[in-house]
């Protein structure tokens, strides 16, 4: 009849749940912070002309989807090499168009998404609010030996896309129009990610 014993039993359980939730949240926030810091350092440390770290999204013949590797200009070719895999390359003369856009993406991939789902009280959503990062999306259109058109997409750290594009153009790669196609933010329809 006395409610005090019931309360004394419920309070530790609730506090334990809250504790778990907070622990998950803290862990995820730490993971996000470390991931963001790492990529920022990469972006700052990028030197024009040198190999840059990129993720091949799709379309580069011979490379697998979502492979991370080094993208560089070697001689008269653009090369992509994943650690331990043979280099795949495309000659600069075969490039028909280059474009760079920026995109806002959630960091952490599938693991992080699952982790966020596991956080109680919708804490995962709160993490999602901060666990995002801007990337440059580099699109290369090139022709193969049979004159067939290919479209390759790479994901680079913010700021590296424009530098790489300038390098490519300086070394003779073609672009369809002199004005930058990579500024879609000016039109609201094209704006890719307005958080």
């Amino acid at each position, binding site marked *: 009849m006395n409610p005090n014993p019931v309360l004394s039993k419920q309070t530790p359980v609730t506090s334990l749940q809250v504790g778990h939730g907070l622990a998950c949240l803290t862990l995820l926030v730490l993971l996000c912070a470390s991931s963001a810091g790492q990529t920022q350092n990469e972006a700052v440390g990028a030197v024009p002309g040198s190999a840059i770290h990129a993720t091949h999204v799709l379309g580069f013949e011979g490379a697998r989807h979502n492979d991370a590797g080094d993208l560089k200009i070697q001689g008269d070719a653009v090369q992509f090499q994943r650690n331990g895999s043979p280099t795949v390359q495309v000659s600069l003369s075969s490039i028909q168009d280059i474009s760079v*856009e920026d995109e806002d993406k959630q960091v952490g991939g599938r693991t992080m998404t699952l982790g966020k789902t596991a956080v109680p009280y919708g804490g995962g959503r709160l993490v999602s*609010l901060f666990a*995002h990062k801007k990337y440059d*999306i580099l699109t290369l259109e090139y022709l193969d030996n049979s004159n*067939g058109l290919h479209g390759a997409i790479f994901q680079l750290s913010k700021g590296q896309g424009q530098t790489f594009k300038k390098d490519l153009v300086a070394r003779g790669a073609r672009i369809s129009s002199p004005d930058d196609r990579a500024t*879609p933010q000016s039109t609201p329809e*094209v*704006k890719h*990610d*307005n958080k």
Partner: protein
Amino acid sequence: MTTNREMSLASTKTTLSLPDFHRRKRQCGALAALTLLLGVLQFQPFVSTALAESAKVQKDLGAERWSIQVERVDPGDVALEPSFEAAIYENLLEELAKTEQFKQLLRTGDRNASDVSKLFILKTTVQKYTPGSETRRAVTTVNGATKLNVRIQLVTRGGQVVLEKVVDGNVRFIGGNLRATHSLAHNVAVILKRSTLPAQADRVPEQESGKGSN
């Protein structure tokens, strides 16, 4: 005595008739087997001829498969990002290759296209594009979907439209914005797989007026 004699004669007759009966039976069996064998041998050339003809028909049907050339995506009036154009194009090629419906898959501008006799051209025009946000999807779940709406046309080299459909591709929950292009390409491949393509180029049906959205 007489009775005994008659009985012995009868038994002798019986003993003589049993082997005879068995011999005749064996002869009949052998004759039946021979007839059956002859019959089979007689039919064998016909059977083999029929099988060969069937294989030939199947081979011909295989040889008559269409090839397809995927044209680059036409953004139409929609301001679509170049990465989306490229992703739709590449995903279409991948998804169509998975279905194994076409003999050959060719890209835009491929020189080998001129040598292919039975060639379809797949034209994709973007009608509607709603840019989404992965962050908004992750935070709200119900908001921030990336939506694509395209019109596909399967055209012969002569310009006859064989198939025309409106197809959607969306990403609503988990995944990056470019996943909408994969979903779209998959839907296009499914539509083409389900559609009946004409056997001959000159037997191209009328253009489909109903636009089935997927």
